[in-house]
């Protein structure tokens, strides 16, 4: 039994089952519609990317509050630079910007010995401010040529009969899981989050590990922004606002412990599914959309209590 529970994201699996059962009972006809499911899947995929990046950072015992702004900034860069650089060029530059933001924040955290909560809060505002200045508050669109570019269609349309975003999420989740659980890098990342001192006593360069985690997180958030815009190529200044809180919630609901070193990427995706499902179920129920945040808050608190009890039952000291 414990072996099963120890598996990745067990708490989140229970959460998803409970949630789906509840939605089915409460609102069968509203929930199980093609439109709702398609929206849920699409946005779960997008939030899933951001949540996985967040999970990696949390497992390294840091936090990244800037992901929503990085998501927005990368998207804006992708759309705005396209007329000059072309789709491929702007894709590369936009992801480069994301990675660079992650790198800068990581340097401040690692070399400046500053708390990541503060550094990335600064990152959140800075990147959002750049979005406002850059776009001048106006909406930007892709040209018709850019919309039909193979890369745009590859990232934004449907692939093998499923939404492209969910396809890429599965690919990314597979790669990141291998990276986290079966490579020396993953072992060192988990060690860094579990006990930085112990990891360093074994010669692990925890500074480099954390830099890599922050950069991966920003890249994933940025890629999620690009996926969103390939699907619906229109930017607005609020793109990705509050997404950092949804991503952190998803990672925590999915079993990432803020004490570091423990967590699950699959759990983070399931957490994203829970967060997104609540939004669309509330819409389906006709509830005012403002209730959404309240519900996410309640789910988050319940999930944290549940995950902690689960961890204690397994004998972890959290």
């Amino acid at each position, binding site marked *: 039994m414990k072996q099963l529970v120890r598996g990745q994201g067990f708490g989140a699996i229970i959460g998803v089952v409970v949630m789906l059962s509840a939605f089915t009972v409460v609102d069968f006809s509203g929930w199980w519609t093609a439109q709702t499911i398609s929206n849920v899947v699409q946005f779960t995929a997008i939030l899933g990317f951001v949540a996985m990046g967040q999970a990696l950072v949390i497992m390294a015992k840091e936090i990244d509050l800037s992901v929503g702004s990085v998501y927005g900034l990368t998207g804006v860069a992708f759309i705005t630079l396209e007329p000059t650089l072309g789709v491929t060029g702007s894709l590369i530059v936009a992801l480069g910007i994301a990675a660079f933001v992650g790198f800068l924040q990581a340097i401040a955290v690692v070399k400046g010995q500053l708390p990541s909560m503060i550094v990335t809060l600064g990152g959140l505002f800075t990147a959002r401010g750049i979005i406002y200045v850059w776009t001048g508050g106006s909406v930007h669109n892709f040209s018709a040529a850019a919309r039909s570019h193979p890369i745009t269609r590859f990232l934004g349309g449907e692939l093998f009969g499923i939404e492209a975003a969910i396809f890429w999420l599965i690919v990314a989740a597979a790669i990141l899981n*291998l990276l986290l659980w*079966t*490579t*020396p890098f993953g*072992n*060192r990342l*988990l*060690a860094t*989050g*579990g*006990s930085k*001192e*112990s*990891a*360093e*006593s*074994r*010669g*692990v*360069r925890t500074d480099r590990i954390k830099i890599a985690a922050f950069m991966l997180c920003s890249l994933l958030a940025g890629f999620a922004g690009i996926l969103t815009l390939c699907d619906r190529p229109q930017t607005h200044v609020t793109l990705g606002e509050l997404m950092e809180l949804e991503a952190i919630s998803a990672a925590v609901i999915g079993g990432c412990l803020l004490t*570091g*070193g*423990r967590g699950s990427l699959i759990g983070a995706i399931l957490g994203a599914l829970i967060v997104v499902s609540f939004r669309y179920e509330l819409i389906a129920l006709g509830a005012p959309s403002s209730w959404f945040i309240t519900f996410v808050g309640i789910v988050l608190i319940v999930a944290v209590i549940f995950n902690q009890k689960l961890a204690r039952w397994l*004998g*972890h*000291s959290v």
Partner: protein
Amino acid sequence: MTNNHPLIQVKNLELYFGAFHALKNVSVDFHAGELVGLVGDNGAGKTTLIRVLCGIYAPTSGEVYFDGRKVEKFHPKLAIDQGMETIQQSVGLCDNLSIARNFFLGREPVKRILGIPFLDFAKMRDKSTRVIREFGLRDNVSADDEVERLSGGERQSVKIGRAVEFKNRVVIMDEPTNHLSVREREHVNELAVQLKEQGLLVIYITHDIFQVHRIADRVVIMENGAKVADASTDSMTAEELEEVIRQGGRVVEKREAV
């Protein structure tokens, strides 16, 4: 027992943290195959000295020679690469990882697939299982279990086993028996002697002069950042050494002719 060529030679080491004079002109030799007790009160500078040897602190002035070569750069990774291992009570194992993962942390064996390094789980499990059996962990503990399950003594055993397995030349034990039961303490002390007999240099840091006097070849006493005594355990009794600590500052040098 010891040869003439010291494995670690510390010469006129000075270390300041700002205005604080942490190490005062410390010179001491350590030989391979020797178990040296490093004794002193809290704040005496024992751990500071060790942290210089481990590359955590760089000295303000003075020299450290390792195996006859002058140490130019102080970095933990370099010290580890040269075969220096520190065993501390609270540091060295990550609770959230399995014994096997901890065992190879930072030096993971890999199998390359398409050039990508993947952990060689079979090798990690086999080697660490053999070592934990050899170093007396409970039979129901497997290499896949998280370190969190282990008792204090078992944790020390894993760290000591790891030091042996990686063919370290120097094992520094920093208060290795704190918070351990009597039987576990005996076990750890036996392992320290075992390491020495295998030709390693063992530096054993403790408050407890009586405990270390029984197993050490030599005892170095520090006080206020300076070395105040350096004597073979044959030449001075534990009581005499305790008296030195109590008086603090009276410099004693009694060593076996080498």
